[in-house]
């Protein structure tokens, strides 16, 4: 118990070396950029791991927070590209229309960065407060969050003049003054994404080893019991939810300069579910599972998905069924399964203990 966190910390170190030092040396620009994209999903996935794996909140609408970060960033980059003029896509619909009022503040780099951090905190804070205090949980929470993602995607689709609609926002030329076409700058953006993924892993690592991490598991497993220990479980869940929203927003914000386009399809229901998919695949309650799962799903999508687009969906679906059937705790529980045979992990033990207790009850 006292030793294990340090092993995980070492794991994060190895991961950091691989992402920050090895990957830029061995990968082509194209694949490095792709890896950057997976890192963005992984950042969101780390947050989902915290909220869902440890907190028990099935966050099916992380696309909402991904969008908050992504569109904040995209609006800033669009304005930066347009310079003093109106963004090109707006001119298409009405050459004389003024810039919508909510775009104006995103000219400022400081405001944009603050928005990427504060918007998800405020939105998730208000939403979580309203839901958790009213004890909305389980399937209701999942459906509600999913509905929000759908609603936001529809809203963006239908406001083509203000947000670019289904075509989305694209053709960014600059990233805070850096020319995005320059491979060196692209590598810098990748390094920022990979670095922030490491930071998020470190943050979650500290959460899991802290007392809060224990309390979060307790809340996940027996919310009412936690109440009777003098805590308000709503507050515990709120913290995890807000942190996960913040991570999704950071992932979304970096997604924009790396991929070069953001559309409602990247934040809607399907995209939100795909974010969950990586987490489930990797192992939602583990430290590395969500990030590695998200990277794996991303990689599968761009390699298999481009060579065999029809088959990829089936492969993903099949993988899902197999994992849920045989490895409900994801691929990261695979090593523990093998070593667990020899050591008898506590997870496998309860059955005899419960049986014994029942027998005792019958006898007395």
């Amino acid at each position, binding site marked *: *118990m006292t030793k294990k*966190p340090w092993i995980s910390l070492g794991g994060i170190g190895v991961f950091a070396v691989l992402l920050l030092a090895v990957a830029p040396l061995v990968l082509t620009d194209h694949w490095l950029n792709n890896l950057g994209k997976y890192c963005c999903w992984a950042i969101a996935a780390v947050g989902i791991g915290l909220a869902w794996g440890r907190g028990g909140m099935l966050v099916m609408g992380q696309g909402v927070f991904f969008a908050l970060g992504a569109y904040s960033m995209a609006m800033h980059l669009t304005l930066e590209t347009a310079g003093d003029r109106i963004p090109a896509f707006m001119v298409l619909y009405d050459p004389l229309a003024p810039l919508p009022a909510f775009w104006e503040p995103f000219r400022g780099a400081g405001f944009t960065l603050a928005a990427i951090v504060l918007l998800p905190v405020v939105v998730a804070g208000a939403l979580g407060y309203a839901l958790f205090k009213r004890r909305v949980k389980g399937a209701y929470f999942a459906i509600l969050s999913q509905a929000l993602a759908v609603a936001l995607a529809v809203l963006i689709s239908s406001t083509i003049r203000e947000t670019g609609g289904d075509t989305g926002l694209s053709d960014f030329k600059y990233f805070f003054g850096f020319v995005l076409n320059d491979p060196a700058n692209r590598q810098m953006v990748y390094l920022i994404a990979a670095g922030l993924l490491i930071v998020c892993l470190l943050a979650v690592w*500290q*959460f899991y*080893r*802290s*007392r*809060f991490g*224990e*309390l979060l*598991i*307790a809340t996940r*497993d*027996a919310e*009412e*019991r*936690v*109440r*009777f*220990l*003098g*805590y*308000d479980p709503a507050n515990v869940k709120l913290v995890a939810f807000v942190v996960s929203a913040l991570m999704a927003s950071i992932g979304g914000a970096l997604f924009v300069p790396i991929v070069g386009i953001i559309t409602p399809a990247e934040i809607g229901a399907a995209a939100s579910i795909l974010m969950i998919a990586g987490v489930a695949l990797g192992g939602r309650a583990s430290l590395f599972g969500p990030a590695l799962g998200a990277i794996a799903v991303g990689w599968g999508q761009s390699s298999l998905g481009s060579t065999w687009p029809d088959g990829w969906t089936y492969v993903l679906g099949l993988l899902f069924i197999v994992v849920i059937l045989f490895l409900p705790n994801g691929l990261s529980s695979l090593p523990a399964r093998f070593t667990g045979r020899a050591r008898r992990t*506590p997870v496998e*033990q*309860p059955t005899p*203990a419960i049986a*014994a*207790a029942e027998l*005792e*009850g019958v*006898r*007395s």
Partner: protein
Amino acid sequence: MTGASLVVTDLRVEFSGFVAVGGVSFDAHPGEVRFLIGPNGAGKTTCIDAVTGLTKATGSARLGQTELLGKQVHKIVRRGIGRTFQTASVFDELTVLQNLDIAAGLHRRSVSLLRARRGIDPSIERALEETGLTGELTTPAGILSYGQKQWLEIAMLLVQDAKVLLLDEPVAGMSQDERTATGELLQRIAAKRIVLVVEHDMDFMRRFATRVTVLHQGKVLSQGTVAEVQADPQVQEVYLGTADAITEA
């Protein structure tokens, strides 16, 4: 420890027209092991639910000068009211130490939640010794025996430093030896705290109760020492077949 008593007056609980508890009054003081007994459906657990804020109720339940009814569950807990449940509910995936540490967190500042645990709180060590769980410190709570889980729950209440311990059938499913150990534990705890036990088990009640309140169909049937309650003809009538069980052996 303050000498405040738990005083429940004219407690009423209704579930959409059905009166589960209809004007029950009782009190419990530090230094006694107080029992609440009665046949199934008498409203014993509902009384505890009402005092702990789980169920809405009218009337009054005071700890010292503080009115408890109408407060939120976790705020009542912070006033020093702790309870256990009919089925032992501990956090199965967490170790005994982690379970107790969460219970102890009640008295910590919330910022300290972000740090990892260093060392073991002295109150946790005391509670472990008191309940005989010292050897199980790193055992996941899920694989404890049923009796041990109940003790862990009591230990959690001790770590919480609850002034009032409301125990819902704490010896259900326990062996005879475990019952005796639990009874003695309760008597030790009751020296400084208010202990109120809801029980079915008449033998356990006879051996360890200081004072007893008998509930029947949501009303107080009888109140007094074990001997007084046993002598009450009304109690014998309600228990019919089991009346023998009360008076005999």
